[in-house]
């Protein structure tokens, strides 16, 4: 049921001449969850919309579903499921009607639709809410309805456009786990757009980091973290600003640094923040360069203390600029 997707030479130029996406090639294997990760305006949503059939690629670009060209096939004939950040639930229908909509417009018999809707309600723990109006639901419930609606017609591909960005942190975490379990259970090819790297790490079989309309790097979360292809990827994977580049050649993860108080050390502590699991310490070298270190809590590390910086294990990463 799940299919492979290939993009060949797919670029997107907007009517004004701005390049939304530079021509790219991409292979997504059947059943895989691919996360498109990047800052806003990097082209990740444009790429998703090309796959969905909501945008046409520039001339010369082709989109293939299981080897069959679908470039000019409109979204309503691609059999894709889509989930939006704004939920996009139909306000004039109740929960059950929303979930059953895709089955109804495809002309599935009524009793079969009802059965499938009941399954979806059960699966998403929404059975008690089936006759609720959409505006009487919480954000988390709405997104579960949107998910149920998207997968009810058994699409070949599930496309998720920042589905959790409108939710608060705790709910986001919980729903992320539910989506993860759902994608594994369905074994469906899924493309998931987000700007949140922890979401990307948690969900993606592979992560595609995008920057300014280009693919910066595709790989597993571990790959991207330990072998970033360039400075942009190194900065984007890992908490924001967590990485430091020395001489433009080496990337140090803050958790790979240790600090030892030493009156002759070359660094001085400028700021200390206790974060719970770690102590985040900013240190400045004699030459003015700043480093960030995440170290085990240690009360002897105080602002103004001279320290030496020790590298743990093989933590140096070569990076292209």
């Amino acid at each position, binding site marked *: 049921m799940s299919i492979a997707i290939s993009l060949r030479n797919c670029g997107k130029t907007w009517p004004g001449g701005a390049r939304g996406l530079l021509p790219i090639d991409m292979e997504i294997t059947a059943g895989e969850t691919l996360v498109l990760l990047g800052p806003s305006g990097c082209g990740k949503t444009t790429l998703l919309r090309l796959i969905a059939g909501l945008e046409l690629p520039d001339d010369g670009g082709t989109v293939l579903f299981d080897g069959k060209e679908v470039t000019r096939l409109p*979204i309503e004939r691609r059999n894709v499921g889509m989930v939006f950040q704004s939920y996009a639930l139909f306000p004039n229908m109740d929960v059950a009607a929303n979930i059953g*909509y*895709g089955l109804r417009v495809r002309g599935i018999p009524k009793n079969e639709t009802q059965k499938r809707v009941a399954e979806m309600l059960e699966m998403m723990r929404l059975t008690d809410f089936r006759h609720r109006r959409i505006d009487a639901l919480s954000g988390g419930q709405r997104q579960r309805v949107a998910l149920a609606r998207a997968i009810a017609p058994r699409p070949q591909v599930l496309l998720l456009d920042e589905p959790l960005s409108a939710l608060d942190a705790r709910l986001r975490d919980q729903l992320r786990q539910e989506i993860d379990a759902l994608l594994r259970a369905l074994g469906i090819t899924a493309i998931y757009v987000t700007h949140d790297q922890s979401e990307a790490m948690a969900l993606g079989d592979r992560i595609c980091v995008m920057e300014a309309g280009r693919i910066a790097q595709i790989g597993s979360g571990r790959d991207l973290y330990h072998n970033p292809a360039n400075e942009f990827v190194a900065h984007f994977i890992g908490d924001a600003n967590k990485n430091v580049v020395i001489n433009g050649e080496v990337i140090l993860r803050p958790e790979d640094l240790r600090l030892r108080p030493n009156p002759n050390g070359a660094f001085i502590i400028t700021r200390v923040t206790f974060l719970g699991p770690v102590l985040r310490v900013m240190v400045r070298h004699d030459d003015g360069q700043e480093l960030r270190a995440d170290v085990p809590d240690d009360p002897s590390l105080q602002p103004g203390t001279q320290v030496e910086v020790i590298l743990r294990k093989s933590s140096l990463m070569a990076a292209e600029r």
Partner: protein
Amino acid sequence: MHDRLRAGLLIAPALAIFLAFFLIPLGYLAVAGGAGGYSAILTEPRFLRSLVSTLLVAAATTVITLFISTIMGLFLARVRFRGRSTLLALLTLPLAFPGVVVGYLVIMLAGRQGLIAEVSMALGGDRIVFAYSLAGLLLGYVYFSIPRTLLTLMAAAEKLDPRLEEAARSLGASPFGVLRDVLLPGIAPAMAAAGAICFATATGAFGTAFALASRIDVLPMVIYTEFTLQANLAVAAALSFLLGIATWAVLAVARGASGGAAA
């Protein structure tokens, strides 16, 4: 309690104005008809016929205007093209015209010396004249109703989340399905509101009727005739009050149907 007292004091001036300039004249209008005025309406079929035909013309105007404006509004809200703002300016031009001018425009188009008459004669046919009939009146009413209705519906269509349409399409809905399930339900409250205003304006339209309605007795014309020519104040007052009540009742129904969005 203190707050309520202060709120009462603050709203008192508005209430006084409402009472003095709205409720008192309206109440006076209601009683000015007197038993004679109202019984004259009931016994004289001409008056009732005029009330019914006024409401029917207004209803027809509303339906035609909504049909045209919905199509144009959805189109203009969603499609960007060169000349769009010029077209929009032209379409909303009638807002500036008094009803009499609109009537005059209809006469220039479909009157005895009008464009349509000239063209139909030149083509060897009969002289086609419909300015002074129901068709002419409808044309005039629709012409001046479109701008307001169009602007309201466009604003509503622009506020619709485009993702709703994309979601429906992703689920397999055809363009007609999107229109039926997403677009029309989305702008339905605005359609009810704009339709109600359109209806109320058409029942009360005087200038256009004055210029055109030589063969149809629409109520504002009858009221004018009874009031100025016959000096029949009681009947004029009773008719005015009935027209107001009938229009208000239609608006109340529309308000109920649109969940409070209608004027």
